[in-house]
Every structure is written in C-alpha cells, then in structure tokens.
C-alpha cells in the first residue's frame, strides 16, 4: 500500500508530472506515492522525472489503459 495516491487519469502532459511533484511534497522521506494516469507519455516522463530528481521509481505497470507508477521519495 502506498502512503498516498494521486489520480492523474485524463490529464495530459505536463500535468501528471506537476501534480506528482506537488503530491510528493506531502509524502515523508522514504514514503511512497502511487500515481494513476492515462497519458501514455507518462511512462517515459516519470522515468526521466525520477532520474533527474533522485526519487526512486519502484514500479510501473499498465492495466487496461491505466498506467500505475509507484515512486519512493528519496530527494
């Protein structure tokens, strides 16, 4: 179970990233944020976001057009 969940379904670039960054602020260090999105561009973008910010992308998966990302807050 993630510490927080962000529903970014239906949102297009760059909103999932911007909202994730905002949601991460409320997560404690070492905590996790789950993001649900429908933007196919989010796959590459969350990988890049995590590489750049130092946060850890622990999982990403797709189920019936819904992308799920699990980010661990490190930075």
């Amino acid at each position, binding site marked *: 179970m993630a510490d927080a969940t962000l529903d970014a379904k*239906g*949102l*297009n*670039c*760059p*909103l999932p*990233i*911007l909202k*994730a*960054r905002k949601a991460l602020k409320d997560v404690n260090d070492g905590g996790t944020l789950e993001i649900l999105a429908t*933007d196919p561009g989010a796959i590459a973008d969350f990988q*890049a*976001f995590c590489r*750049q*910010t*130092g946060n850890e992308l622990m999982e990403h998966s797709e189920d019936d057009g819904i992308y799920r990302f699990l980010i661990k807050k490190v*930075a």
Partner: protein
Amino acid sequence: MSAEEKSMSIIVTKGSLDWAYPPFILATTAAAMGLPVTLFFTFYGLPLLLKDLKLQVTASGNPAMKMPMMGMHMGLPNLLTAVPGVDAACSVMMKNLIKKKGVASIEELRDMAVEIDVRMIACQMTMDLFEYDKEDMIDGIDIGGAATYIECATKADINLFI
C-alpha cells in the same frame, strides 16, 4: 532537489495561444524537476504576463495548422484565414480541444509557474514600446532588460528562444 543543479532560461517572444504552451510547459516541468527557471518575456511574448489573458490562435501564415474534425485533419485555405471571425472560431475550437484532451490551460500553467517559483522577467523596453504598466501585469514578476537576461543566461545550462 537534484544533486548536480542545472538551470534553464527561456526568451518568450510569442503571445498567441498555441505559442504560449512550449515556454510554460517547459518552465513548469523543469522547475518540478528541481531546476531554477527564468522566463524573459519580450515583444509579443510580454502580454502573456497580463492579468487578463485573451489568447487566440491564428490560422493565417500557419499552413501546418490542422485540426481533427469528422475523423480527418482539416486546415483552412490561406485565403479564408483572413476572413473576420475565423481566428475567433479557430480559437474556440482549439480551447475546446484543449479541455477535451485534458491539456492544462495557459492560465493554469502560469499559476503553477508562479507557485513553483519560476522567475518571470518582463522586458522594460517592450513595456515602454507597447505602453504597458506594471499594474497591468500579474504580481510577483521582475522587470528588467537585456543585461538582466544575459547575466542569467551565462549561468544557465539550457537557454531557449521561443
């Protein structure tokens, strides 16, 4: 946030609805990724800092502008783009598409840019030239000139002109 801090600056020179997107998308995203960002608004980009945004697209001189319509992508013949009301109609269509596809509005992106501490500089010379006052602009912006931008650009890793 980032171990090796990079930064970005963008010169914003265009103020139509479509051209307003790249600078605000890149600025908010870079800031979200931990980069200090500066936007320098000059010439036709300056009105993007006005409190009241009245953004439009124009098909005139924009031959690659095609909109999805009835399962196809349709553009306007060049001659028609000069007909009064066509820009307004194109703008309404574009804004509807933006909403339908879950794309942020420029107002929304600009609010986020303010919130995430993107530094926004209004070009003083353009304000004089086109007769804008600081009171017409949103709060929290700086006013400066070419030297202000150059000082920032010499330190930035990414400098874009849009």
